């Protein structure tokens, strides 16, 4: 469920010209961890696109870690749930630089609106 959502997310991001502008010079690894199932993904952002989606934790010096239940993570990456609201409601834990978290909010805003 989550893997397919992330693959769709990758397609949406890579085909969106606005996202390209926003992710210019932003090259983190986004680590997505489920806490109700042993699943972990690494979304590699590179050169204004998601260059790879791996089903493992590929370590990097610039990481943004997102942790939550699989259904919550799925809802976030298919645009049904706002990540900032999910974090406020305690449904999602985000670890990493504040600016990276803001960038994630912006991507969500650009793709799916408020």
């Amino acid at each position, binding site marked *: 469920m989550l893997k397919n959502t992330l693959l769709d997310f990758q397609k949406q991001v890579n085909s969106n010209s*606005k996202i390209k*502008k*926003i992710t210019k010079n932003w090259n983190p690894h986004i680590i997505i961890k489920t806490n109700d199932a042993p699943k972990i993904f690494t979304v590699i952002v590179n050169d204004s696109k998601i260059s790879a989606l791996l089903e493992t934790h590929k370590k990097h010096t610039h990481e943004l870690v997102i942790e939550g239940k699989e259904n919550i993570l799925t809802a976030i990456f298919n645009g049904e749930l706002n990540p*900032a609201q999910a*974090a*406020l409601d305690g449904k999602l834990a*985000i670890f990493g630089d*504040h*600016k990276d*978290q*803001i*960038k994630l*909010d*912006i991507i969500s*805003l*650009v793709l799916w*609106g*408020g």
Partner: protein
Amino acid sequence: MDESIAFTTFQSEIKEKAHTLANTYLAVTAEEIDKESKFPQKNIKHIGKSGLLSLGIPKSKGGIGDDVLATILALEEFATGCASTAMSCLMHYSTLPVLSTLVNKEQEKTFLQPIIDGKWLGSASMSEAGTGSRLWHMNGYVVNKKEHYTIQNSFKSFCTSNNYNNYYLVPVKKSKNSKPNDLSMFIVSSDIKDIKVIGKWDGMGLRGTSSNPVYFNDCKVPKNCRLGKSKNIFPLLMCSVLPLYLVGLSTVYLGIAQKAYNAALEHVKKRVYSDDRKSAAEIETVQRYVGEMRIQISLVRESIHKQCKLLNNFNEILKELYDSDLLADVIGNLQGDNFFLDIAQIKVSACEMAINVTNKAVQICGGAAYVRGHVVERCFRDARAGSIMGPSDDIIKVIVGKKELGLPFPWEESYE
């Protein structure tokens, strides 16, 4: 996402600085300012000298910083000193997000530097007489002439700091036939002779704010006074200026309520009855009123602070979108989002709370607070304005109600 309830050292320093100013200057002159309906010019000068007039201008542009919570903490301190001073500062601060974002390098030197130096006070000049609280609908428009712009038919009601400000921030329609929200933004020097300030301010409360109507008609504005691209003006007004104005307004009324509460507490502790030698504070009804006031004030303060932290995050988003030239595309239709409605709801809560708390303060102080000149009497009058200041509590309630009922927002209806 910063969810911490603790202040940063910067926020704490600003609060402390504002507290000192409020106690040293603002509180001392508040009675005189109210009595004589006198603009608090000296207070504004002291605030300017302290650097706090540049609260809202980012450090990267030479200001003291654009942390919303720091601005709000300063405003509450100002309001507990002198409500008129705080309101004038709020209307100045409300100009700064747009100015800081939209100025080009040349405009930065001309318009931002005097504010950073503490020498300029501005006024956000938003609501028009024809459309009242409906800030999304402007009647005034601009004509682009060869040598200058001419602002026409813009009747701004209740503009603050008239005759004492250095500039107005004026949004008007891009042209006579543009949509009401297709706007151009101008920084207009208050020296321009075509600006007509109408009458003398003689309000029930906030008597030092010099809040007259202002008429901009046949008003020639130099070419360098136009700010930014039109497509960004409405999103910035609704998503940057309005939220700051709303939390700021809520804070000014929070400060007024806090001042009335402090004065009422002092009064009931000191008021001792000659028959049983007991103070009014020992009366259970008074204790209950005090408890109610404290609870109402605390709840509003906590809500304001929480929203300020969210606003700080949101402003970072706005900045990134603006820098990527995506602001209008992405933010254009967000003003009906729950986030903005939550901020608008705080304005209603704060203004109703201020009326309620100052009313209770009069009640427990008795006849003493009914006499002209008592602190609580002044706060009671000052507090009354909030509910009717645009966007009025009634308009906000209608908007929230429409959202809950799934009906179109007023600004969507008004374009048709």
